[in-house]
């Protein structure tokens, strides 16, 4: 027992100087005001790295979307104007009358204007989404969820009309103030006689989507699962000659009935059905996305629109895709009185947004949140910085110690290797490594580790050279201690503070080097680092105006590296005791050294 305790004490005796030497650098840092600043900043950066997932407000890979209600006007000649934003809600339908235009949106929003006037916004409650709108002269109808139908009274207020249904109203068609139709979910068809809404039996339970008339007693209704209903002379009939293919069982979302011989219905998965007066048949446009709207401008000019900015043009024979004006999702198209609109923009990618409360540092050209990317980038920077600094120190200290301790030929050989290392410029060497291997963080760490130990080795060597001449090392040698023992127990504790200084210096260089290499596109593309953020900013070309994409990562790099530099600077007294005091009371140095931190 006693013997063991003695062994433990013995061991503590050896470790004590080592511990003291580990603590010493921290003391020095805390004493120096600049060192304190550096330590505080670095601590904050480390905390950011640890809590990056908490601090990140968004998934950095997610393309953030934004919702706006906008319209794209066009005229009878097919001239498109640029889009106009009406409000913050996705528009569900736009109705065009002779004098008035009406738009309805989610969350109880209605927009109304006189032709060419300004839009007036009505907010009628948060709960209900408005789905349908219709205008005839100054008779305006709005339909919505839960069987809601509103009309605008003379005072300009919206008044609810009683309806015999609780199902959603999907479309409205107005002939006059005394005659209108409404269709909705579960096969609902309602008719308006100027006083009341009455239900008509449609003979189906499927959701009905759109209704289109060529005269008051000839119309077509389309709905889910390929539902097509002809309404003629007060009677409903399913088309007799419908060809039953897969396509005809898809949901039909819109219909345009132009004359007795021309009608087109469109629906999900780019389904197109054409009516030639007798028969419905499917047609293929080459498009693949859901089509949400179709309209006839004239006999041989039809437009169909859909998700992701799909616009198709039909001349009676062929479908042709029109260049996308935007990549937004269109909900519908309307045309009347020589005025046409594509409307109802669904969520679109919030690209290159300036900083806001939602995105602190704005978004990238792919709508990704830059703040979150920068937060995650902190992890990469610190990880590369710390690992590379450890590798650098391990190689540098070992080589320096062996060279300084053994001297002679070993020293010569090792220092020649150091010379060779000084001949290899870091960035180009890393570029060559990337050319040869795949880009990854390890290549970057390897490049830094393989090259920058050279300075460490030189500094540690010079320290060891002087240590070896000290009496206590000589005494240990006389006492018969092995080389390994002397190096580990007597020399290592004495070079620890210096190694600590070099750790800080190497970390600063490693972080800069990682940022630089990543900026050149040599980092792994799937990992966020400050360098890769700047790389993608440059690659996108948007960086010239999107300052919010460029400034934050650069500031983070600078601040982190400055903090590390401040720490290493306060540690410089370890190598140059003269820096300890002021000019007047500079103590005599124990041994003059000329150790300038070398440019890497």
């Amino acid at each position, binding site marked *: 027992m006693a013997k063991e305790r003695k062994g433990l004490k013995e061991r503590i005796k050896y470790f004590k100087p080592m511990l003291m030497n580990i603590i010493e650098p921290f003391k020095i840092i805390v004493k120096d005001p600049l060192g304190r600043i550096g330590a505080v900043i670095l601590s904050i950066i480390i905390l950011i790295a640890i809590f990056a997932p908490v601090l990140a407000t968004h998934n950095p890979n997610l393309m953030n979307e934004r919702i706006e209600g906008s319209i794209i006007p066009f005229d009878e000649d097919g001239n498109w104007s640029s889009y106009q934003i009406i409000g913050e809600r996705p528009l569900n339908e736009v109705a065009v009358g002779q004098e008035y235009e009406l738009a309805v949106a989610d969350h109880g929003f209605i927009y109304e204007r006189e032709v060419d006037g300004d839009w007036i916004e009505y907010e009628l409650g948060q709960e209900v989404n408005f789905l349908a709108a219709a205008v005839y002269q100054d008779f305006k109808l709005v339909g919505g969820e839960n069987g809601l139908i509103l009309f605008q009274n003379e005072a300009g207020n919206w008044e609810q009309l009683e309806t015999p249904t609780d199902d959603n109203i999907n479309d409205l068609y107005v002939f006059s103030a005394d005659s209108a139709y409404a269709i909705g979910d579960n096969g609902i068809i309602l008719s308006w006689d100027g006083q009341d809404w009455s239900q008509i039996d449609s003979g189906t339970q499927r959701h009905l989507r759109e209704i289109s008339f060529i005269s008051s007693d000839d119309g077509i209704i389309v709905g889910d699962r390929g539902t097509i209903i002809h309404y003629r002379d007060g009677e409903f009939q399913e088309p007799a000659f419908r060809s039953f293919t897969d396509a005809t069982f898809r949901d039909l979302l819109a219909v345009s009935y132009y004359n007795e011989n021309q009608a087109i219905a469109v629906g999900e998965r780019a389904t197109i059905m054409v009516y030639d007066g007798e028969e419905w048949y499917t047609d293929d446009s080459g498009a693949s996305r859901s089509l949400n709207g179709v309209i006839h401008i004239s006999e041989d000019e039809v437009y169909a629109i859909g998700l992701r900015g799909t616009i198709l043009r039909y001349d009676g024979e062929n479908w042709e895709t029109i260049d996308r004006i935007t990549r937004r999702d269109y909900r519908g198209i309307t045309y009347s009185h020589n005025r046409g609109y594509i409307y109802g923009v669904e969520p679109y990618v919030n690209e290159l947004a300036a900083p806001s409360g939602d995105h602190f540092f704005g978004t990238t050209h792919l709508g990704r949140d830059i703040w979150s990317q920068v937060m995650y980038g902190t992890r990469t920077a610190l990880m590369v910085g710390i690992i590379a600094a450890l590798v650098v120190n391990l190689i540098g200290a070992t080589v320096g110690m062996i060279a300084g301790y053994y001297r002679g030929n070993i020293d010569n050989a090792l220092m020649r290797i150091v*010379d*060779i290392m000084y*001949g*290899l410029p870091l960035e180009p*060497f890393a*570029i*060559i490594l990337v050319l040869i291997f795949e880009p990854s963080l390890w290549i970057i760490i390897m490049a830094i580790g393989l090259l920058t130990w050279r300075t460490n080795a030189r500094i540690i060597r010079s320290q060891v050279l002087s240590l070896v001449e000290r009496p206590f090392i000589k005494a240990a040698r006389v006492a018969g201690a092995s080389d390994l023992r002397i190096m580990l127990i007597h020399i290592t504790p004495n070079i620890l503070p210096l190694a600590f200084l070099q750790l800080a210096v190497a970390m600063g260089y490693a972080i800069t080097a990682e940022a630089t290499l990543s900026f050149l596109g040599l980092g792994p593309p799937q990992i966020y680092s400050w360098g890769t953020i700047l790389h993608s900013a440059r690659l996108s070309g948007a960086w010239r105006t999107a300052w919010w994409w460029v*400034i934050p990562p650069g500031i983070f790099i600078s601040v982190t590296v400055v903090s590390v530099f401040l720490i290493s600077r306060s540690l410089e007294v370890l190598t140059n005791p*003269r820096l300890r005091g002021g*000019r007047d009371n500079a103590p005599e140095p124990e041994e003059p050294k000329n150790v300038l931190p070398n440019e890497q």
Partner: protein
Amino acid sequence: MGKGQYIAKRLIQLVITFLIILTILFFLFRLALPDPTAALVMDGLSAEEQAMVRERFGLDRPLVEQYFIYLRNFMQGEFGLSFHYKSAVFPILMEKLFNTLALMLPAIFISYLIGPLLGVLLSWKRGSNTEFAGIIGGLTLRSAPVFWTGMIFIMIFGIRMGILPTSGMRTLPYEATSNLDKIMTLDYLRHLILPMFTIAIYYLGLPMLIMRNTMLEIMGEDFIELCQAKGLSERKIMYKHVARNALLPVVTQAAITIGLAVGGQVVVEVVFSWPGLGREMIQAVRTSDFPMAQSAFMMMAGLVLVMNTVADLLYGYLDPRVVLKGGDK
């Protein structure tokens, strides 16, 4: 051993070191590309051209023999044929090297003109707020990634204010019969301003801090006390005695910096689309143009080695205290 012998020894060391780097590079590249002809075929050279290249570089012979052919070619200035340009690498590289130097030398000149002066000021004001601010400023300049400051400069002066060109060396298209022709114009100077200051600002911190540290060291020396005892003014002591002696490490650092700058500021050339050596190398990596990347790297490594040797020799030449010896203990 005398001075001459020392110099000779350093030069021999230089050559040997360079040979070792060449060797490492050769085997590193063979490791990556065991059969360079495959890359040649992929790059669409004609069969005759392939045969020619294969023969010239001995690609069909054993590895060791290839190595010696590689060394011989290198001695003869035969750097190979660029896969990308389909022409000899060497003239292209020489032009790019000139472009790089046309950017780096003015930038380093400016930073080593201003940096030491600021360093003197800092050491003079030791312990004051000026020094405090100066150190933080100097470290910040060295910490801000140089490509980032370049981007900020472009955004401010190139895009917002629109007063300076932000890319390239000259406005295209231009005609220049010689390199000198290319830079003896106002147009070149306008293109030079932004990248030059980007680099100069980055390099400014190092001579400033070195100067300050050395100044402080020298102020502790006995002969300064003597000067003070003689009654010389503070200003005179600072500039005539301290600063003069403290310039030494700055000068040698300048030489080392020139060597490193050629290969070390790849990013600036990329950001400003400066048609220099570094940008060429990046392009070579992107297009897998092995001979070009290899030769560019050799050129950079060679320059670093030469300038390091120059710095060493300069140190010995400038500092009378240093006794040049052959390296024997």
